[in-house]
C-alpha cells in the first residue's frame, strides 16, 4: 500500500515539494528550475471543476425548489445564489446507492466521489458494520489524471484538495478524495500551508536573491585571506553565486502571471475563524486558477458528521448534533436552514470571485470555464438518507445547461460522476460500482 498522507497540519513544504516533483535522490535540485509556473500553452478552452462539500444533509423543505424546469424559485437555503440563478443547475433525485460496510455518514462521504463501496475495516460508526477507506479512485482524481496525461491540459499540481476546519484526524469521515483504493487524500485546511505550497518556491527565491549581496561581500573579504592556490576554488564558487544571481533575476519575469497574493497574517485555525479561513481559501483557489496551477479542486468544509458551531450566526450548538433533531423541532430546522444558507453564501462568494476574474489569456471569466458542484454526504440529517443527495452546479465549465431545476427519479449518483468526466471529454463508460453506471452519464446539456 502506498503511504497514506493523512496529516494536514505538517508544515514541511520544502520536503513535500521535493516529493511532489518526484525527485529521487538521484535527481538534482530544483531551486532554479521549478516547473513552469506560467500557463500551459493550451489553445483550447481551460475547463475546470470545483467540488465543494458541506456535511450533515440539508432541510429539504427549505432547499429544493418546488418547480422543475427553467422557471423556479430559490428557497431560503439557496437564496444566496439569486444573482447566479441563470448559471445554476439544481439536481434533485440523485441518490447514493452504494451499500456495504460503514454507516451512512461514512459511506456518504467515502462513496460520494468514488461511487464504490468501502473496504471492511476497523472504523466503527454509530450503526452498521465497521469499515475502512473507499475501494476506488474519486472522480476529481480520475479527471485530474485524465488532464495530467495530456500535455495540453497538464498543470503544475493537476488538482488541489482544500479544506476549511477539517479535524486533524484521518478516518473515513474526514476524507472525500481518493487517489485510488485505500489512498485517501488529505485536504489542506491551513491557508498558510496552502500558500507555502503554492508560492513557497517563489518566496524562497526572493529570500535567496536578497542575501546574495551579503554573501558576495563576505566572500570577497575571505578571498583576501587566502593563498593564490586556494583562491581557485573560491573563485569557482563565486562564479556559481553570480550564475545563481543571474538566473534568479531572469526568472523574476516568468514566475507567475500575477502578483503573489497577500493573505491576512496570523489567523488561527479555530472554530470562530471559520468565515475568515473560508474567504482566504477561496481567494487562494481563485489565484491558483488564475495562475493555472490546477484545473480540478475540492473544497471540503469540516467533515462528514462535522460539528461547526456557527456562533457568528448566533447558533451555539454543533452542526451534527442539530442535524439529528426531528422535523418537529422547528427551531433546529430553522437553524439548519441558516447553516446551509451560510454554506451557500460561501458557494456564492466563490462563484462571485470566479465571475469577477477574467479568464487569463482567454475569453470571458473564470466562471464561464468552471463548474462548481456543491454537495453533501447525506440527503437529510435526521433520517441519514443517502437518497436525494444535494447537487447544486454553478458555472459553465462543463457545458451543462444552467438556469434549471431538474428532478430525477432515484438515479444513481454514479451517472452524475460519469457526466463530470464526459464534460471534460473523458468518455469512460462506467465509474465506480459497474451496476450503477448503466444508462451512462446524465444528460445535462
Amino acid at each position, binding site marked *: 500500500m502506498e503511504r497514506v498522507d493523512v496529516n494536514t497540519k505538517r508544515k514541511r513544504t520544502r520536503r513535500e515539494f521535493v516529493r511532489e516533483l518526484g525527485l529521487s535522490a538521484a535527481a538534482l535540485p530544483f531551486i532554479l528550475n521549478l516547473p513552469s509556473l506560467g500557463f500551459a500553452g493550451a489553445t483550447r478552452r481551460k475547463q475546470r471543476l470545483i467540488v465543494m462539500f458541506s456535511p450533515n444533509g440539508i432541510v429539504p423543505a427549505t432547499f429544493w425548489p418546488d418547480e422543475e424546469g427553467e422557471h423556479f424559485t430559490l428557497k431560503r437555503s439557496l437564496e444566496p445564489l439569486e444573482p447566479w440563478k441563470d448559471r445554476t443547475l439544481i439536481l434533485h433525485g440523485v441518490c447514493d446507492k452504494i451499500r456495504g460496510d460503514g454507516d451512512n455518514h461514512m459511506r456518504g462521504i467515502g462513496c460520494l466521489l468514488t461511487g464504490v463501496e468501502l473496504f471492511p475495516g*476497523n472504523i466503527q460508526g454509530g450503526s452498521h458494520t465497521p469499515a475502512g*477507506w473507499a475501494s476506488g479512485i474519486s472522480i476529481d482524481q480520475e479527471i485530474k489524471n485524465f488532464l495530467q496525461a495530456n500535455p495540453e491540459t497538464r498543470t503544475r499540481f493537476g488538482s488541489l484538495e482544500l479544506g476549511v476546519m477539517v479535524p486533524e484526524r484521518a478516518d473515513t469521515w474526514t476524507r472525500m478524495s481518493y487517489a485510488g483504493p*485505500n489512498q485517501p487524500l488529505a485536504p489542506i485546511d491551513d491557508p498558510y500551508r496552502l500558500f507555502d505550497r503554492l508560492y513557497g518556491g517563489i518566496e524562497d527565491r526572493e529570500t535567496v536573491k536578497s542575501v546574495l549581496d551579503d554573501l558576495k561581500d*563576505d566572500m570577497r573579504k575571505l578571498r583576501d585571506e587566502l593563498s593564490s592556490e586556494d583562491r581557485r576554488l573560491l573563485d569557482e564558487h563565486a562564479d556559481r553565486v553570480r550564475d545563481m544571481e543571474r538566473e534568479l533575476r531572469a526568472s523574476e519575469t516568468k514566475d507567475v502571471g500575477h502578483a503573489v497574493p497577500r493573505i491576512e497574517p496570523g489567523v488561527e485555525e479555530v472554530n470562530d475563524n471559520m468565515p475568515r479561513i473560508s474567504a482566504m481559501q477561496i481567494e487562494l483557489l481563485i489565484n491558483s486558477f488564475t495562475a493555472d496551477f490546477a484545473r480540478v479542486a475540492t473544497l471540503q468544509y469540516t467533515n462528514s458528521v462535522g460539528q461547526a458551531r456557527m456562533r457568528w450566526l448566533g447558533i451555539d450548538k454543533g452542526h451534527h448534533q442539530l442535524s439529528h433533531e426531528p422535523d418537529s423541532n422547528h427551531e433546529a430546522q430553522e437553524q439548519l436552514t441558516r447553516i446551509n444558507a451560510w454554506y451557500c453564501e460561501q458557494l456564492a462568494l466563490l462563484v462571485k470571485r470566479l465571475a469577477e476574474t477574467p479568464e487569463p489569456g482567454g475569453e470571458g471569466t473564470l466562471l464561464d470555464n468552471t463548474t462548481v458542484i456543491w454537495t453533501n454526504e447525506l440527503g437529510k440529517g435526521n433520517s441519514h438518507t443517502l437518497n436525494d443527495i444535494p447537487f447544486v452546479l454553478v458555472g459553465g465549465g462543463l457545458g451543462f445547461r444552467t438556469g434549471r431545476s431538474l428532478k430525477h427519479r432515484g438515479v444513481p449518483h454514479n451517472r452524475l460522476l460519469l457526466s463530470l468526466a464526459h464534460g471534460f471529454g473523458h468518455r469512460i463508460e462506467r465509474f465506480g460500482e459497474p451496476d450503477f453506471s448503466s444508462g451512462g452519464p446524465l444528460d445535462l446539456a
Partner: protein
Amino acid sequence: MLRRTGSFWCRSLAALVIVGGAAGAVRSADGPEPALDQRGAAIFQRLCASCHGDSGQGVAGEYPRPLVGDKSLEKLTRLIERTMPDDDPKQCVGEDAAVVARYVHDAFYSPIAQARNRTARVELARLTVGQHRNAIADLIGGLRPVPDGGRDGRADIDSDTAHGLRGEYYNSRRVGRGAVVDRLDPEVRIAFSGASPAHEKLEPEGFTARWSGSLTAPETGEHRIIIRTDHAARLWLNDDDQTLIDAWVKSGDDTEHDASIFLIGGRAYPLRLEFTSRTQGVDKKKDETKPAEGFIELQWKLPGRVAEVVPSRYLSPRRTPEVFVVETPFPPDDRSVGYERGTSASKSWHDAAIAAAIETADHVVDHIDRLAGTRKGDSERDAKLRHFCARLVERAFRRPLSPEQRERFVDRQFAVAADGEAAVKRAVILALASPRFLYVDIGGETPDAYDISSRLSFALWDSLPDDDLLEAAASGRLLSRDEVARQAGRMIADPRARWKLREFLRHWLEIEHAPDLAKDGERYPGFDESIASDLRASLELFLDEVIDGDRADFRGLFRSDELWLNGRLARFYGFDLPADAPFRKIAADGDRSAGVLSHPYMLAKLSYPDSTSPIHRGVFLARNVLGRALRPPPEAFTPFSPDLHPELTTRERVMLQTSPTGCQSCHGMINSLGFTLERFDAVGRRRDEERGKPVDSSGSYELPSGELTTFAGPRELAEFLATSDQTSRAFVVRVFHHLVKQPILAYGVETPAELETAFADARFDMRQLMARVATSAALAGVDATADPPRPDQRRGRFARF
C-alpha cells in the same frame, strides 16, 4: 598468442606503481652521489629521453606514460640491463645500467622521488556530501534544548546496552496510561493467537500496544520500513508529529504497509510504533467476543538486501532526540583519487547547497520557538531570536563571530526582514551558503585552535566540533599536542567515529549496496537472494564485532577463525545449526580461519556467476590490501569460457590466458595471490577438487624488494598479510585519505612511515590509528608543544558556548 608490442617491457617497468607513499622503499636522506648522478643523467638523456622525456614524463607516440613505479633499485637495474633501450638493449649494460637505474630511481621513479617531485599540498576543500549532511544534523542537534534526560528509572529501559524496544500493552483503546504489561521486546515480531503476550492480563476482545525507543540506521540513504499486521498500526520515526506509516484505519485485506525514509547511517532515531486490534470511531459494546488473533512485525528492507524483521541490535529502548536529516539530493562527490573530496564547486553542487540551506531554514523556522526558547508574544522574542541566530552562525562557522560578522550575518538580516521568522530564515540561508560553513579548513595562513578543532571533528566525525572541542579551542588548550591527542582519544568512542571506521572498511573491502552476487543456478543451486543478503549481514556482523571490540584489531580482520551464520547460511555452507537459528558465531576450520579473506561474501563477490575469478581476487589483494596500484590491461580481454577448456581447472585456464610475457608483469603477482583462495568456489564454499582434479591453493607474493614469499593456502596468506609492513603501510595511507580527504604526502613524505610506526605501537588498533591520523592532520602547520598556551595565542572567544 597475444599481441606483443615492442615496448611491452616498458609497460612492465611502469606497471607497478604505488598509491601515495608506500612499500618498502628506503628513503635515502642525502640523495644520490653527485658524480654518479651526473653520469646517470647523461646516459638517460642520451639513450632514454627520446622515448621517456627529459625527466621521465613520457613522450607522446613513443612511451607516453610517466616513468614511475615501485621496483627496487636492484630489479630496475636488471630490467634496464636486459631490455633497454628498446631497439638495442646491448647499448646499456653493466655499470651504465646501474648508474642510469640509480638516476631514474632517485630522480623520479621511486615513490619517494614521486613524492618529492609532486607538489602535494593541502588544498582548500568544501564539505563532501556526507560531511554536509552530518554537519547540518549536528548544527541543529546542538542547538536543540537539552532533553530532560528521558530516563524511565528502569534498568532494562535505561541501559545503554539494552537492545530491543520498550513494549507497553493496554486493554484500553488508547495508549499512555494503565499499561497491563510493560516489558522489553527484543524485536517486534509478535503473533497473538488466543494466547497474546501475557494473555492472562489482556482482554480477549482486543488490546492496544506501543513500542518505543530508537532505531539505528545501518546505511546512509533510503531505508524502506515495513509494518506487517492484520490489524491497525502506525509508526513515527524521527518525527514525533508526523507519522511515517499510518495504517491506523484498517481497510481491506492489506497486511503490509511501507514507507521510505532517508537516514544518515550510524545514528539513532526516535521510534514509536502503535498497534490496536480494537475498532476506532464509535466505541460500541462488543456483541460477540472474538479471541484476539493477529500479528505484527516491524521490518525493513535495506538497499540490496531482502526484507527482514529489524534485528534487535539496531533497536534500543532508550529514546533519542530527533535528528534533522537534509533530504535535498546532492550530486556525488569526486572520488577519482580513491577517496571522496570536495575540490570543485559545480553548479549542481551549489544549487544543492542552497536548496539544503532553504530546507534547513524551513525546519528551523517551523521549530523556532522550541529552538530559541521563546514563544509568540514574548517581550524578549526579538532578542532571543537574534541570540539564537548568532549561536547558529557561530556553530556553523565553528568559531566566534567578529563584530563585523555578527553585524553582517545576524543584525543586518533582522534589520531588513519583515518579521522575526523571516530574519531567522535569511540568517540560516546566508550562514549555510557561506564558505565559512561550506569549507572544511578555511582561514588565515596560520591555523588557530578553532581550525584544529574543526580538523579533528571533520576527520573523525565528518561533522562539526561539539561543545567540548569548542571549549578546548576557546581556552587555547587545543594548541597543545597532548590536548589534541586527548580529544582525539575521546572522540573515537563516539558512534560517529565508529560509523566512519565502518564506512571505511566497507569502502576498503568494496562492500557495495547492491553487489551482483547472482550465481549460476545449475552450478550453485540454493544460492539465492536471501543467501546473498544473509552473507552481507554476516560480514557486517563480523566487522562490527571487530570495530566495537576492546581493540579494533586490524590483524583480527585476517586472523579470525569465526564465522557468523544463521540457520539458512549454515545449511548452505554445511554447518550444523537449526534451520531457523538467528545469527551466531561458529568456529570455522583451518582454511576458513582467514578472516575477511575466507568470508564467503568476499569470495562470492570476487567470482564469476559460474566459476571463481583468481584475477578478481588477486587484484583485490594487490590493490586494496597490499596497496599496489595496477594499470588496466593493455587491451580488453574476455575471460576464456570454462566450457571452452573443460579439461582445465580455473587455475590452469587463468594461467593459460595470462601466460604471454606482456601479461605476466602484472599477472605474475595478481594470479599467484588470487590462486591462494582457489580453496573456495564461486559461492565461497570450501572445495577439494575441481573438474576431478585436486584444487591447488598454493600461491606466492614477491615484495618490491624482490623477496618471494610462498603460501600453502589461505591461512598462510592471511598470516602474511596480517604481519606484512606493506599491508599496514597501505592500510594507514588509505585510512588517512578516508579520514582527512587530503593527499597524505602533503603532510610530509615521512608521514606514512610515522603513522605506520604508530599503528604498530598501538598493536594495530584501528581506532587508535584513527585518533593518531586525526591528531597528526589537525596539527599540520601548527607549532604545537606540550606547553600550556600563552595568553596571546588565544584568538577570539566563544561567548556563547
